[in-house]
């Protein structure tokens, strides 16, 4: 097999449809008789529900139905716990999951109280104003430390102290490490990550066909198979009666893998009730409340070091805002806990977190999924240590890197995939050195910075390193089939939200089967086309589904060779599979097209012998033994206006190691996009809640996504340490760009404004010109 497509910057198969407006997104689904939903949402963060009167709404012209929790009857139930707690000793875990429509209590602004179904979304919104709700407000629970006290209201009446979870993981002996240390640094860090804000909000269309006894659902989900399974169970249907289609999805980033959102539970039920297709499209205002966020953590962290900067141990205690419910378990804080260790040797580690219920929207993973928070703490501790021990920032990192011969490297503590955190391969020194070289680190510090400073300009440089646990199980599957036309079909259970699966997976198949990438038709996200799978999350699509695709394609290749060998009456070794046909090496004219072979494999006469299958088709699965650890380093030069504190990025470098690369163009796009979100997270985006749990900036005018003027040109470099955990050697890359940008900004801005000399440290994210002003101005 020749790898001429694998590793090549092949242009995407899916682009023509997207570029001409011919790609189907959920809101493009139009069905006869469709009704449109609008949800009435709580405008207070915490309240007991005294009554909901929908009579007037029901009476409005154009309204087809109005439902509250009471109308759902036995169907009403809290959603399932999607991710159970990991097997960690001593864990405290209080699962409380969201409900389809609020009953008795509302726990965050935006929680749905009722749903109106009408002839148009316009009319449905009109009817919302007819619904009379009587709420008895309760005190909001917003601040994490306050939430844990006795004085705080209980978000869940039976959960004291609003403790959603308490987890401690240790390695080695921190107390002993601290006692031995030459230098100990303690700090408090605050890290907030925001709202994913894909340009396409969520949406769902449900069509119940009573005569066919079948439900079709189009949903902007990243996990169509899991959604199909759960929905079927909820509705008392067999999985075979339910088809979930995640068509083109306009950006996922994590919150679209949260499942059994209230709307996802209510809309299909309503479709069954009404025997009419029902559509709900989330508007942008709703999105700020109805779709999950990632939010904040407060860390009290301590690092114990030798005088030459070697880490002896780290102790970290942190609080995690989990929102009103915790259906996604502990993925985010476990990721923080684990990813804090980074590419470094940390002989002793004592990490404890408390996840706290608050009266704010639910927190579930968003690109980075808690890794940002951990990376911020470690990178900042190292920066402070470098300063206090008078070491260069790059040098202190080098001294602590896990050496390249130490893999697989076992960090012992439990990761989000419930297995001990083990790094499969890596060469962190190489990554850092490359980044330093690309940014011109030494030259900047020795020449450029002093020169520009002499001109009165404030420029600074930042570097940050990280690892990213990717490609975790459980598994994915793929089905490859050669058609009579000679084209190849590929179906897999995951969905696509822009990552280019229609192309990258086609490249893998094209190489195995000797066809053009454009001749491989890929279907993702349709549960009728592929039954099994988990979904796109944790940077696993390319790794897990990609390998499943490869396995399936390999088997089909074997079938092709076997059948062709029979056809030509020769040995398989004498055959070549290329250009859409199988030919006998050295004998021109002896060739058969794949299409013809496919026909031959599906006989109208003759038999399929026992132990064989018709056609040139195979379904294979891949489940990695553990996650593959990608790594990287970012470096950035910024200039700051010392009076306005506005900032400009002068240079931005990413060096990323994600093992072998399927499509470098697609990979670059993923990194660019991740960095852009990281920049948003570091300096522009912040969800601003007041003491009443009201979100003050619920619009794109005030929740600031970076534009083409805020995101700089980025230079990307690569190193390759293949993963030994999968045959293709791939590691994930989807989240990498977003992970280390916070500490990068903090470090670079400190450098630009020479803040450490003024005894000012930046130990929080997000930053902003306003915040920098506050931190650098003595209070009057």
């Amino acid at each position, binding site marked *: 097999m020749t790898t001429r497509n694998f590793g090549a910057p092949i242009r995407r198969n899916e682009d023509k449809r997207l570029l001409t407006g011919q790609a189907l997104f959920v809101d493009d689904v139009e069905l006869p008789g469709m009704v449109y939903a609008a949800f009435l949402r709580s405008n207070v963060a915490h309240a007991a529900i005294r009554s909901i009167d929908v009579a007037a709404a029901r009476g409005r012209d154009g309204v087809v139905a109005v439902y509250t929790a009471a109308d759902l009857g036995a169907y009403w139930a809290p959603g399932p716990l999607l991710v159970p707690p990991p097997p960690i000793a001593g864990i405290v875990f209080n699962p409380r999951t969201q409900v389809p429509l609020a009953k008795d209590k509302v726990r965050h602004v935006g929680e749905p109280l009722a749903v109106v179904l009408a002839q148009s979304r316009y009319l449905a*919104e009109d009817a919302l104003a007819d619904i009379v709700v009587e709420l008895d407000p309760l005190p909001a629970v917003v601040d994490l430390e306050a939430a844990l006290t006795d004085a705080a209201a209980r978000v869940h009446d039976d959960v004291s102290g609003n403790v959603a979870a308490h987890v401690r993981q240790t390695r080695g002996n921190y107390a002993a490490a601290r006692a031995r240390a030459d230098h100990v640094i303690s700090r408090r860090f605050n890290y907030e990550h925001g709202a994913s804000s894909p340009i396409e909000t969520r949406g769902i269309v449900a069509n119940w066909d009573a005569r066919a006894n079948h439900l079709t659902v189009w949903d902007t989900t990243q996990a169509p198979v899991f959604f199909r399974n759960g929905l079927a169970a909820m509705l008392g249907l067999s999985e075979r009666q339910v088809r979930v289609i995640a068509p083109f999805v306009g950006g996922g980033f994590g919150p679209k893998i949260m499942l059994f959102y209230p709307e996802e539970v209510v809309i299909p039920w309503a479709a069954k009730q009404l025997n009419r297709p029902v559509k709900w499209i989330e508007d942008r*205002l709703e999105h700020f409340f109805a779709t999950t966020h990632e939010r904040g953590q407060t860390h009290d962290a301590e690092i114990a070091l030798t005088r030459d900067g070697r880490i002896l141990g780290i102790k970290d205690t942190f609080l995690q805002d989990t929102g009103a419910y915790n259906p996604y378990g502990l993925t985010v804080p476990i990721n923080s806990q684990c990813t804090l260790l980074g590419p470094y040797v940390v002989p002793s580690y004592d990490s404890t977190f408390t996840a706290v219920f608050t009266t704010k929207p639910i927190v579930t993973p968003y690109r980075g999924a808690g890794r940002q928070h951990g990376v911020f703490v470690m990178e900042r501790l190292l920066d402070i240590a470098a300063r206090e021990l008078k070491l260069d920032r790059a040098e202190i990192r080098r001294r602590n890197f896990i050496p390249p011969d130490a893999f697989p490297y076992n960090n012992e503590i439990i990761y989000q995939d419930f297995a001990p955190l083990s790094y499969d391969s890596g060469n962190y020194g190489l990554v850092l050195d490359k980044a330093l070289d690309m940014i011109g680190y030494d030259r900047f510090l020795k020449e450029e910075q002093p020169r520009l400073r002499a001109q009165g300009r404030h420029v600074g440089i930042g570097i940050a390193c990280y690892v990213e646990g990717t490609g975790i199980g459980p598994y994915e599957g793929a089905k490859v089939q050669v058609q009579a036309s000679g084209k190849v079909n590929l179906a897999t259970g995951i969905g696509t939200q822009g990552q280019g699966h229609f192309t990258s997976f086609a490249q893998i198949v094209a190489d195995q089967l000797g066809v053009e990438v454009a001749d491989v038709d890929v279907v993702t996200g349709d549960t009728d086309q592929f039954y099994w799978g988990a979904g796109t999350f944790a940077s696993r699509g390319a790794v897990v589904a990609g390998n499943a695709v490869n396995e399936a394609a390999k088997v089909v290749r074997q079938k092709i060779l076997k059948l062709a060998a029979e056809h030509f009456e020769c040995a398989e070794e004498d055959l070549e599979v290329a250009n859409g046909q199988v030919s006998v090496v050295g004998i021109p004219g002896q060739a058969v097209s794949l299409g013809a072979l496919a026909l031959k494999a599906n006989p109208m006469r003759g038999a399929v012998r026992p132990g064989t299958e018709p056609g040139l088709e195979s379904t294979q699965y891949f489940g990695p033994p553990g996650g593959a650890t990608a790594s990287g380093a970012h470096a950035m030069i910024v200039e700051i206006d010392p009076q*306005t504190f506005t900032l400009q990025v002068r240079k931005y470098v990413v060096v990323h190691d994600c093992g072998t690369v399927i499509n470098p163009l697609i990979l670059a796009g993923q990194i660019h996009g991740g960095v852009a979100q990281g920049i948003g997270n570091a300096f522009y985006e912040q969800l601003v809640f007041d003491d009443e749990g009201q979100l003050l900036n619920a619009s794109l005018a*005030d929740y600031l996504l970076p*534009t083409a*003027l805020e995101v700089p040109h980025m230079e990307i470099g690569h190193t390759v340490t293949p993963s030994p955990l999968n045959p293709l050697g791939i590691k994930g890359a989807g989240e990498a760009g977003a992970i280390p940008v916070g500490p990068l900004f903090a470090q670079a801005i400190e450098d630009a404004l020479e803040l450490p000399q003024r005894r000012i440290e930046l130990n929080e994210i997000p930053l902003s*010109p*306003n915040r920098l*002003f506050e931190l650098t101005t003595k209070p009057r």
Partner: protein
Amino acid sequence: MKPAPFRYVAAASLEQALQWKAAYGEEARFLAGGQSLVPTMNFRLTQPALLIDINPLTACAGVSKNGAQSVRIGALTRYRSLERDAATARDLPLVHEALPHIAHPQIRNRGTIGGNLAHADPASEMPAIVLALAGRLRAQSVRGERWIGAAEFFKGALSTALEPDEMLTEVELPAAAARSGACFMEVARRRGDFAIIGVACTVELDAAGSCREARIGLCNAGDGPVFAEKASASLKGRKIGAAEIDEAAALVQGDIDPGGNVHASKAYQRHIAGVLTARALKTANERAQRGH
């Protein structure tokens, strides 16, 4: 986010538009560019009973000189037209310099200067400029017409002196004098966002090179656009140097009453007001000395 129901009429003439407005009063809103109005309608923060679409009234758009001293801009003039207008660039340098800061090209393709002024968002650039330039605004109704001075026109946040039956049809601004310089600057989180603070200033010099008049206006510095009276007065009759500029900048900080918002504390706004005033005055002064 769909708007509540409303009646709609496309005005065939100014008279018709004014008649409809007289009939409905505050229950009717004029639809010009819609770039400020329609978002509030989509959020259902505004629910007019009647929208009077005045986009057909092309006679209400256009830039013309009124003698040598002043420029008249029709209320329906789109920002994009102003951007491309040579007279505006030459005679209204403050307007010209502010335009790229206003939202984005797609917004400026529809947004009109009249719509923006009548909307009177305290963070908007144009009200501050009109106030700084002491412009006049023409209001028409079925009862007649009147000219309103800028200081009287802007009453507060989203509030103007327009009566319920009146439409803003024109704004008149003084053309830049010889030996004057202007400068508009703002700090915003992203280009096109509302200014955290914006400063619009003009400096006119006399034959001796001293300041004959300086006018400093600010946006997002108070309940409406702010004219920094003390700071402006402080420069009159003096040769403007670094010390005078610093003094004016400090006075501006006392002249304003910023409200703070999710992006900026009052302290930061006040700080920026001082910083931008100093920078804008310096530039305006240099431009005045160069002769524009």
